[in-house]
């Protein structure tokens, strides 16, 4: 809620000169509209704060170093792949294969390190390679051949799954010993993963709202034909976002491997995609494309992490937690739909 009151306090003059402003508050009405639009993120923030206070006051050890680290570590990888999913959902697509890229990427990195490539370079090459190859294939099959991305990435996901199982013989392997030092920066140290996730959220929020790429991503998802007729190369935008999503999946896989200190064939897969999607939609990104928010994603995943950590500390089994997760998704979506309806009611008023 804090950013809403901040917006309200700004005078019109500061609006005209503030470097970070997105909408000019030239009239009271549009300023009210701005506040309302921002509420999408603000309402998720409010839910997160309320949940935090609830567990902090009712659950011992919730506000402890260990618990906070747990929340941070839990949410980080979902935020990382969630960024890619937000990009794709804003331009009207989805990627189920990103969880399998997560599974595959540390094996690929291990292979490069074994081939004598320094760890940092191996990580960069792995991310770029998987981004270009898997994201590229997902993007081309979807845009050029016209296969719905849900199906495209279901197919490519199984292919990656099978490939990862084959090359790993479905066996865990240890991380290369020479990589462990640098690995502290890539998920090994307790806070490193959430720092990656948060910095990436800030960068991609700027990309989404302040750059040509973000503008075109919104345009493609908002009105595909209109975007094409305006001369935007819509396939290029979509393929690029598929690549970024796959690259982020590769990064998440590597971060998780260093965090868990093991390369595990049961990591990632479809479950993480669905979990991240829950964070994306709770965060307020539209299923139908055209609008989305990285900050909302971060907060949406935070809500999931608080629920997971809080109920875990209260001794509720992970089995029962699935029920809570499902209920949280449904409640969040009902709230979002209701807010959208309120928003369009506001629009009707502004027309008059």
């Amino acid at each position, binding site marked *: 809620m804090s950013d809403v009151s901040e917006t309200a306090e700004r005078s019109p003059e500061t609006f005209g000169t503030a470097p970070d402003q997105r*909408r000019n508050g030239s009239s009271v009405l549009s300023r009210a509209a701005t506040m309302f639009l921002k509420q999408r993120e603000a309402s998720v923030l409010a839910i997160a704060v309320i949940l935090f206070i609830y567990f902090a006051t009712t659950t011992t050890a919730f506000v402890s170093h260990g618990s906070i680290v747990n929340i941070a570590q839990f949410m980080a990888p979902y935020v990382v792949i969630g960024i890619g999913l937000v990009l794709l959902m804003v331009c009207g697509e989805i990627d189920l294969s990103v969880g399998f890229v997560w599974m595959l990427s540390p094996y690929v990195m291990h292979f490069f390190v074994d081939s004598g490539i320094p760890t940092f370079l191996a990580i960069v090459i792995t991310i770029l390679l998987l981004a270009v190859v898997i994201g590229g294939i997902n993007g081309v099959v979807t845009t050029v051949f016209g296969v719905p991305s849900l199906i495209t990435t279901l197919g490519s996901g199984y292919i990656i799954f099978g490939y990862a199982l084959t090359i790993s013989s479905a066996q865990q392997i240890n991380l290369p010993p020479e990589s462990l030092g640098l690995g502290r920066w890539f998920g090994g140290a307790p806070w490193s993963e959430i720092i990656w996730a948060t910095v990436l959220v800030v960068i991609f929020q700027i990309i989404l709202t302040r750059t040509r790429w973000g503008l075109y991503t919104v345009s493609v998802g908002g009105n595909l*034909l209109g975007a094409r007729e305006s001369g935007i190369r819509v396939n290029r935008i979509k393929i690029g976002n598929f690549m970024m999503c796959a690259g982020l999946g590769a990064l998440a896989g590597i971060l998780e491997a260093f965090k868990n200190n093991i390369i595990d064939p049961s990591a990632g897969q479809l479950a993480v995609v669905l979990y991240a999607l829950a964070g994306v939609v709770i965060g307020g990104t539209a299923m139908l494309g055209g609008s989305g928010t990285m900050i909302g994603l971060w907060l949406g995943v935070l809500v999931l992490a608080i629920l997971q950590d809080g109920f875990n500390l209260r001794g509720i089994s992970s089995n029962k937690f699935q029920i809570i997760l499902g209920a949280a998704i449904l409640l969040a979506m009902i709230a979002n739909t209701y807010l959208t309806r309120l928003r369009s009611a506001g629009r009707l008023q502004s027309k008059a």
Partner: protein
Amino acid sequence: MSTPETGDVAMTTPKADDILRVEHISKRYGAVTALVDVNLRLGRGEVLGLIGDNGAGKSTLIKIICGFQPPTSGRILLNGEEVHLTSVTQARSLGIDVVYQDLALIPQLTVYQNMFLNREQVRWPLLRNRSMRKAAKEQIDAIGITTLKSVDLEVASLSGGQRQAIAVARSVYSDAKVLLLDEPLAAMGVKEGAAILDLVRGLKDRGISIIMIAHNYGQVLEVCDRVNLLQGGKITFDKYRQDTSLEELTEMVVSEYRKALEDRHRSASGTITGS
């Protein structure tokens, strides 16, 4: 050199300095033929009204001239030289720009973002939002779209007429020599429509040659120098404004409608007796 003539239809005489000529353009989508050997000319600084029923091929023709899709056959001459249009962006770089009806706007973007779509001001890597917002606001004020409260509103929140006005206002930012307006007066109220006609006149005064698709023949005659009628994928009528009248345009369309009705009756009874 072919003269733009189609069968027995009287056409206006081409001029040496015509800015745009479309010669023998045909377009087929699989089995469907959208345009048949269309010849069309646009004089320098002229406003050409393109009228015709839904499905007559107006939009197809516009999409070919703006580079959105290639013709099946035929050629396009710009300033007397043949050009091969491969994309909207490339056609724009040659000076041919298009304004679609409001359907081409992005509802989730603001007014100013739409007005600058695909011609953004950028200080890499960031958009120059403040500068674009200011320019858009000045433009909106200059052309008198007074009903619009702010350029920061999402287009989804605007009325049909306001959207249309924004779509046309976009054209002001182009350096086009040839401007294609696809139904700029659709969904417009009288007041908004008048503002758009003023805008078209202003564009003409700046020396821009314009092809305008329209449905309202009264408004067409108000602003256009010449009128072409497209029927069944062919240009069947080409006259200067002073040589035609609202009655003539209306009569042509009504007779076409009458003919279509008769054809339907005939084919309907034909099918019954035939089978």
